[in-house]
Each structure stands twice: as C-alpha cells, then as structure tokens.
C-alpha cells in the first residue's frame, strides 16, 4: 500500500509487497535540485543532525517547509505547546525569556541555528519566545515528518536526537532561572527614556518621572543621565555634581560600587541623580562595558533606574537597551519628531522590544499642535499611550527654580502625564509581595526546572 521507504524499523521488507506498494505509491511533490541543496545545506549545519546519515538528511530535507517571517514577528511563544523544529536558513532571531517584570535575551540565533526542539522532540512547552530580529527564512520540520523519517532507521539517531534535545532543554532551563534572579533578588527595573528628536522634552519627562516615582518610593529611584554630550539633569534639579559615571572608568573592581554610589546626588525631596559626564569630552569614557557594570551595581540598590538616553544612539545607549525592561519613547506633535519616532519604533521592533514594554508619550510643546494625535498614531502605526497637554511656561520656570514639577505642582499637565506613566510602569513591573507572591514565584521557577 503505502511507501516502502517509510516503513517502521522492525519491518522485514517483503519484495512482492514492496513492488505492489511502489505501483500504488501516490506522487508526492518534490523540491527542485537547487532548493533541495539549500535545504540539505541548512540541515547539515545544525549540530543536532551531525550524526545523521546522508539518506536521512535528504529525506528530512524533502519534508521541511520553508517559512518567511517578517521583522519583529513572534515565531514561537513561551509556554505554548509546539510540534516543529525551526532551522534558520537566512536572517537572525532573538530568543527571550519572558517573566513578569523582566524580559531577558538568552540567545541571538543566526543562520544554521535551530530552536523548538524541547517542544517538538520532548513534548514540553516552549521554554522561551523567539522573535525575528530581521526578515527570516526558516525551515520548519514538524514532529510527524521527523517521526515518519526516523522510525525507519536503527542507527540510534533518534536516541541521540532526544539526548541532544534534553541537553539543550536543561541548559535553557538554567538560563531561564537565571533570568528570574533579578526578580527574586528584588533588583531594580531599568526604564530607558528615549527622545529621537531634540526639544521634545525627553530630559524634562525623565526628571519628572523620577520625581513621581520617588514620591511613591522615596530613596529608591535613580536618574542616570546619559544624554550626551551635555548632561544637565543635575543642573535642572538644582544640584551641583562633583563626580560622574565617566570618571568610574579606571576605578578598580573592589572599590567600584562604593565610588559609584558616592557619585550619586541626593535631592532632599527624594529623587537621586547620577550624571553620565560632566564635560562633553568625558562622554567617550562611558563605554558599553562601564554601563553594564554600573547597572549591575545600581540594580541591587534601587527599585527603579530611569535612564535619560538623550537623542543620539551610541554604543553605550545600545548596551543599555539590552538592559532595560521598559522603553519610554518621547515625541512632540511635529512632523520631524513624529517621523523620527516612527523610525525609532521600527528600530525597537528590530531589537525585539515587545509592544507592551514600549510606551509612547506625546508631549505638546505648543498650544496648537501642528500635527493631530490621530495623525501621529497613523504615522507611528500604534496608539499613543500617554499624552501630556501643553503646560505653558511651567517646565521652563521649574528648571530656572531648580525644582521638579511632579514634586512641587500636582496640578500641572506634566505632573498628570508622568503620574499616569509611573502608574503604568508600576502596573507592568510590580514586584512580588514578600509574604505572598514571592514564594509562589519561587515555586513557579522551581517547577519549570527539569526533573
């Protein structure tokens, strides 16, 4: 009846029956030569198939399905069941572990890599979500095709495949647990405030957001000013800085934490500020390594770290995007600002920032905006999350007075806007309560570990 080459391994082929089978075999579509060569090439590169015989690889290559995934799209979702192994033929994917209040990139997968083996081979839920970082061409091999090919072979390949899948599953399970450490250890949530166009009010909003958050959590909120080359947050808050992050470059590891924390400026009303650089030429000293080191230290000390990322995207800024749990994009209702914001959203999508971790703030800098809110939303292809109405000269006056509006004037539009933003951040990044939620979270993490 059915195809002789697909029979299970224990079958002793009867030549008479094989002839009969061949005569009735339906015609299956076969890929073209160059397509087949490309498929085999991709499968060969995957370490999971190193030990496979060429015949098995060809049989698998005939059965794979090519899938095109657009930039930023979700390929597999964490926690959902799955039945397909994906091999990256072209493009780049980002594997992230999603835990409430944190999102950790555990791997960036490129051509020749594969994912989905835990679900497809072991039948377990997906360990991590995978997003396409660029346009991707994937080869999808479903469980049924794999079983159909592999059960006809007695070379132990299936056993090795399972063993390999278990190894990878355990490795990622460890990484998943590590990804939740920040939450278990009650580390800070890092919020990046980015304004792709100067004059949109990014610094003002980050300053007032810190004020609003520090009213909720006095002494637990820090503003890290990376708005280079001129970091003026301390000045706007009426504080006089004596040191900055850039000067920590040569500090030895053992005294790094102490020196870094001593550079933090304390405002009597609650917020704290760490300037990135005091002189424009010092900005170059803020390297991605220094930023990573500093954030690792500061996360243990604070509840929220708000980073003013300024306008330009530097290596340090990019390093920080990887460390942020939330990005606030500030734009003004002006043509150039909206266009820049739309481009920035595309970049965030490429970086794999999920939509719920990106907040768009529309800051009105004039009484009558040139571009309406609906037009802004159309250009951005997403809704504006928070709108800050025109606040007159209050922000400028507050800067002159060295005051933070969200602490001094609860009725101002700026305060209303940042209060809404702080409430949203609190809702998304709520910490587990020590007595109630934390044991449940620890339990959940333990349950996810392999037996």
């Amino acid at each position, binding site marked *: *009846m*059915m*195809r002789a080459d*697909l*029979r*299970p*391994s*224990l*079958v*002793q082929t*009867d030549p008479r*029956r094989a002839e*009969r089978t061949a005569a*009735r075999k*339906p015609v*299956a579509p076969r890929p073209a030569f160059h397509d087949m060569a490309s498929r085999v090439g991709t499968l060969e590169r995957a370490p999971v198939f190193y030990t496979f015989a060429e015949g098995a690889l060809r049989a698998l290559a005939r*059965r794979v*399905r090519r*899938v*095109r*995934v*657009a930039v930023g*799209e*979700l*390929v*597999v*979702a964490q926690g*959902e069941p*799955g*039945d*397909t192994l*994906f091999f990256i033929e072209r493009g780049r994917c980002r594997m992230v572990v999603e835990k409430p209040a944190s999102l950790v990139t555990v791997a960036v997968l490129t051509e020749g890599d594969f994912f*989905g083996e835990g679900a497809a081979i072991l*039948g377990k839920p997906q360990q991590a979500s995978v997003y396409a970082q660029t346009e991707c061409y*994937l080869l*999808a091999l*479903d*469980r*049924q*095709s794999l*079983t*159909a090919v592999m*059960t006809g072979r007695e070379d132990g390949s299936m056993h090795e495949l399972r063993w390999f899948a278990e190894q990878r599953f355990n490795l990622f399970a460890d990484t998943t647990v590590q990804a939740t450490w920040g939450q278990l250890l009650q580390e800070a949530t890092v919020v990046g405030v980015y304004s792709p166009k100067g004059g949109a009010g990014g610094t003002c909003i980050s300053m007032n957001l810190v004020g609003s958050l520090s009213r909720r959590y006095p002494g637990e909120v820090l503003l890290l000013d990376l708005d280079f080359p001129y970091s003026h947050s301390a000045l706007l808050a009426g504080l006089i800085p004596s040191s900055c992050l850039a000067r920590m470059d040569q500090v030895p590891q053992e005294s790094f934490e102490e020196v870094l924390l001593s550079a933090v400026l304390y405002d009597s009303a609650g917020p704290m500020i760490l300037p990135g650089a005091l002189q424009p030429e010092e900005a170059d000293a803020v390297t991605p390594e220094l930023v990573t080191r500093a954030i690792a230290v500061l996360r243990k000390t604070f509840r929220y770290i708000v980073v003013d990322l300024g306008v330009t995207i530097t290596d340090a800024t990019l390093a920080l995007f990887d460390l942020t749990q939330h990005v606030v994009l500030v734009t003004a209702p002006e043509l150039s600002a909206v266009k820049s914001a739309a481009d920035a959203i595309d970049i965030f999508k490429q970086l794999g920032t999920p*939509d*719920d971790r990106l907040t768009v703030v529309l800051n009105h800098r004039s009484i009558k905006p040139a571009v309406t809110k609906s037009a802004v939303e159309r250009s951005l292809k997403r*809704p504006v999350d928070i709108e800050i109405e025109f606040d007159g000269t209050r922000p400028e006056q507050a800067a002159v007075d060295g005051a933070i509006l969200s602490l001094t004037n609860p009725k101002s539009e700026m305060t209303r806007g940042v209060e809404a933003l702080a409430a949203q951040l609190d809702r998304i990044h709520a910490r587990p309560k020590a007595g109630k939620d934390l044991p449940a979270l620890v339990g959940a993490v333990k349950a996810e570990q392999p037996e």
Partner: protein
Amino acid sequence: MKGPVPAFRRYQVGVRTAKMRRRLQDLASGKVTESQVTLEESGVDVAGVIDEVTRGLRADSMPVQRLVTWFWNSGAIDHLADRLESRSIPVRIAAAHTVGALHLYEAVWYLEPLLASRDRHVSDASARALGRIGGTHSATALMRGIQRRGTNRRLVAELARSAPDQFIESAISEAAKPGVRPALALAAGLRRRRTATSQLIRLVQRGSMRERVISCRALGWIGATIAIPLLIEALNDRNWKLRMSATKALGALRARESVQELRQLMIDRNPRVRRAAQQALLRIEAGRGA
C-alpha cells in the same frame, strides 16, 4: 430487540471485543510480536478498539510504533488501504478511523480524496483522521478540502488541530489563498496561539469584511490585548457583524478601556449588537470583580 438470541449475540460480540482489545494491548506493550487480529471481526468495532488502545498516546510513542509495525509486518496495512477505497460507506469510515487512531502519516494521501466524498460521514471521518495524524501534509490536505468545499466546521476544527507551528500563520500571509483566509483565521483563533496575532491584526485592518469579522473574534479568543485599540475602532464600523464581533472580542479580553464605547453600543440600532454589548459589559464587570 429483546430475547435470548440477540442477548447471546451481544454477549458474543462483547467477548470478541474484549479478546481483540487484549491482543492489541499485548502487541502495544511488546509482550507479543505476532497476533491473530483481523480487521473484519464480525460485529466488533475494530477501529474503536484500536482508538481505545492508542488514545492519548503520541505517534512516536513505543506502543503506537509497535502496533504500526505489526500492521506493516502482517500486511494488514494493505487491507486498510483497500478498505479506504471500498465502496461501502461504513467500511471507509471505519478504515479512516483506524488510520487516525494509528497516526499513520503515510495514509494522508489516501485520506485526502475522501474529504471530497458526497457522504458527510465519510468526509467527516476522513477529516477527523487527518486532524489526529497532524503534520504539514494533513494540514495541507484539509486546507485544500476547505478550498474545494468552503468553510466547514469539521474541516476548520481539524485544521486547527493538525496544523504544525507557523503553518496557519504563513498560510494567512500568502496572497495565493484569499478564499481560504476566513477559515484560517478561525483556525488560528481556535488554536489560541499568540504567534498568529500580527497576521490577524493585518486581516482586521486590510481584509475583506468576512475576514475582518472572523479575525476580530479570533483575536478575542487568543487574548491579544495588543489589539484592543483596533477592536475599539471596529466598534464604529457600519457593518453590524463587525461591530458585534469586535464587541464580543472586547468582552473576551475583559477590556476595561472599552467600557465607554460599549455603553454607547447599548443603544445600537441592531438588537444583536446591543445584546453582545450587554454581555461584554457583564464579562468586563465580572473580570473587574475577580
């Protein structure tokens, strides 16, 4: 029928069924490699017994593999193929049921023509078997069936069941399959997979009216909160079906931000939309309480 003769026959069938179940269980557990199982045991629902033995097992599990091996070795698989092509409707249905229970991937090519059968029971049995077997070929066969016969509940449900990861998602995106898109959107919703969210959102924005209506519901089933602004926008559409579908989806999503718009729909000119809005508000209220 009552009386001693039918009762005795029932008893005989019961004994034969139990005997067959025992034999199949022995084969599946590996106790024996040879057995006297025949597919035409008088009065016994062989397919039902095989289904009972393999229920809940995966295609690559050892018990299923052992049974399949026995079918290949004994030549019973050829009888199955003959029975799939039989003229008798009950025989074809039983054969489809059996290949489904055995997860016989190689049988997909034989099941596909049965989807076009004029007898609904045969096509349903074939669709069920394809759904149970799963994989790319089964899903493709079901999709072709939908293209030929139009959106059919059984076919869509089995497509949702059989489609491997990213199958529905990529099929929705393919321009070559516009006619089958509503069924695919429905299947994506039934699967409740987050991976189809962006494709469904695109259908709501740019699809035909039918695609938009179905995609709205599917987004609600998936729990795609990201689509809430789009669904709120759809509440103002001229088409009552779209308004109703978006209303139901917002209710399923417990979207508090849509309460005001839903209240406005309580005075909608269409009674079904009004009822849906009322239900959605109740669901949102219940969600708030929880």
